[in-house]
């Protein structure tokens, strides 16, 4: 019998995640841990979780981890990096955490060219606090703090974080991927691999944005959420690589 797929040893086997059915946080978790496992560096890794649904990540990921305060994961990771120059370090952050309350921290980690990788989960809404509007919420999308839907005159346009980060010279790897189809998930894994390679080679800051689903707060059934993502998010948030150094191409 040949093994085609087994769940990564980087995830706690006996623990069920706290994510809602169909939420693709679980896929992003798996991809990151799978890449670290394949590199054989799970025991040399330190992860930093955000505030939001994935504050619970340290309970699911089998690496040393700390929960950072809302938005501060890049600052916390910068501190960890100073003490441990040789470890694998990543932050895992949602869109409220990273683009709103932590906008400054992520921007300056990118500016400094911090040698860690940030995995940014963009699902266009606040999850844990209950469906409030995020800076990434789409025009027309309803949120509990935008009951009539987001509109430009009142709320402005959604933030395109990958494009912003790509403006920072020292953010050498920036890519937007999606978790809505098997093909996109495979591409996403490649981006995660490259992000860690950039870190390994100390080339600069690496940033991967995952377009991810939130069926509960979008108000769509779990199995329909990938379609909602494809129809609504990808047109505004185009997939692709924004920056990639020669060394990892």
């Amino acid at each position, binding site marked *: 019998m040949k093994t085609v797929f087994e769940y990564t040893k980087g995830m706690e086997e006996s623990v069920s995640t706290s994510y809602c059915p169909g939420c693709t946080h679980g896929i992003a978790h798996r991809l990151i841990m799978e890449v670290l496992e394949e590199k054989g560096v799970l025991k040399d890794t330190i992860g930093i979780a955000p505030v939001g649904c994935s504050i619970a990540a340290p309970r699911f990921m089998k690496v*040393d981890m700390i929960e950072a305060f809302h938005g501060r994961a890049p600052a*916390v990771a910068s501190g960890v990096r100073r*003490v441990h120059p040789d470890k694998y370090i990543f932050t895992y952050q949602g869109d409220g955490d990273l683009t709103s309350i932590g906008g400054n921290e992520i921007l300056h980690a990118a500016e400094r060219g911090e040698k860690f990788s940030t995995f940014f989960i963009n699902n266009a809404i606040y999850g844990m606090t209950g469906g409030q509007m995020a800076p990434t919420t789409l025009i027309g999308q309803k949120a509990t703090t935008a009951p009539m839907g987001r509109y430009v005159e009142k709320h402005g346009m959604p933030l395109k974080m990958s494009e912003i980060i790509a403006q920072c010279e020292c953010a050498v790897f920036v890519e937007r991927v999606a978790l809505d189809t098997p093909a996109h998930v495979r591409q996403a894994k490649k981006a995660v691999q490259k992000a860690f390679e950039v870190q390994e080679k100390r080339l600069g800051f690496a940033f991967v944005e995952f377009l991810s689903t939130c069926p509960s707060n979008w108000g769509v059934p779990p199995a329909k959420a990938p379609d909602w993502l494809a129809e609504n998010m990808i047109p505004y948030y185009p997939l692709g690589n924004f920056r990639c150094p020669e060394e990892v191409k």
Partner: protein
Amino acid sequence: MAEKILMKGNEAFCEAAMRGGARFYFGYPITPQSEIPEYMAAHMDEIGGCFVQAESELGAVNMGIGAAAAGGNVMLSSSSPGIALMQEGMSGLCVCHLPILLVSVSRGGPGIGDIRPSQADYRQATRGGGNGDYHLITFAPTTMQEAVDLIYEGVALADEYRNPVCILCDAMMGQMMEAVELPEHKEPVMGDAAIRAYKPWALTGQGDRAEKNRIHAMPWSPEELQESNLEQKVYYDKAEKNLVRYETRDLEDAEVVFVSYGTPARITTEAMEMLKAEGINTGMIRPISVWPYPYAAFDEIGPKTKVIISVELSLGQMMEDVKLGANGRWPVKLISRTGGVLFSSQDIVDETKEILKGVK
């Protein structure tokens, strides 16, 4: 004995922290403590440490959390509104049980305030300025030498108590120059092996440990959070037992007992000599630890005392603790200035005489 050298307060604070083993400093410029990040930028590298100018005080304190969680010995510093921004992290350090040395060089407030000396951050430092059930272990030195000694010791105390240790200074202490004797360099805790041995809870990557380490900013249930808080309370109880520090002076025959800390305690000392020359016997309680507060010192007050006066550069913030210490046994009065204004020893003399007129 080591040579005594003349140093500016802010620079002496840095030397003391580095000699005490601090190797990671994260800061943001703010008057009157900007010499601290400047000194660290110039000298941390020389001893194999690390300085980062953060994007804000929020960034600085959270970098501090990261480095402390990773097992590094961290120093942070700022001044009043900057310390206010850092409170998120202070509360965070406490829930995570992480050690850090904080030097708070206070200026006038509230708000952006004034850049001149003040003690208006007394509550911020002694009550825990952030949210939740926690304390900072806080010392308030009076001379440069005392500041140096407390900072040097503070690095290790933070580790021992798994809690931030705050050194509360007024802006005068940061800016003035005085001779200090600097202590010897301690061996810093650096590198995987040392960190794993000394701080088994730290994040180093799992390595050969049987289990991964997790540091929780958000325990998962009320019960878990309560357990975490009670775990920290064991340290707080120990601090209340072992870290109460104060100095008393001439309490036995004192008609008036002053309670004062920091630079104002020095001004009060001069006022005491002036009052003595006019035939008024005064004594002083000088808290060195302001949390835990030396309430027991008040039991040493003699039978002749008519009144206790809290002398502070804030509107009676410490007087609340003085009243708890006095516990109704004596009337408690206040001599204060606020907003960065200073009193002179003559002011204290005049106001003390005025207070005495109203006390039987």
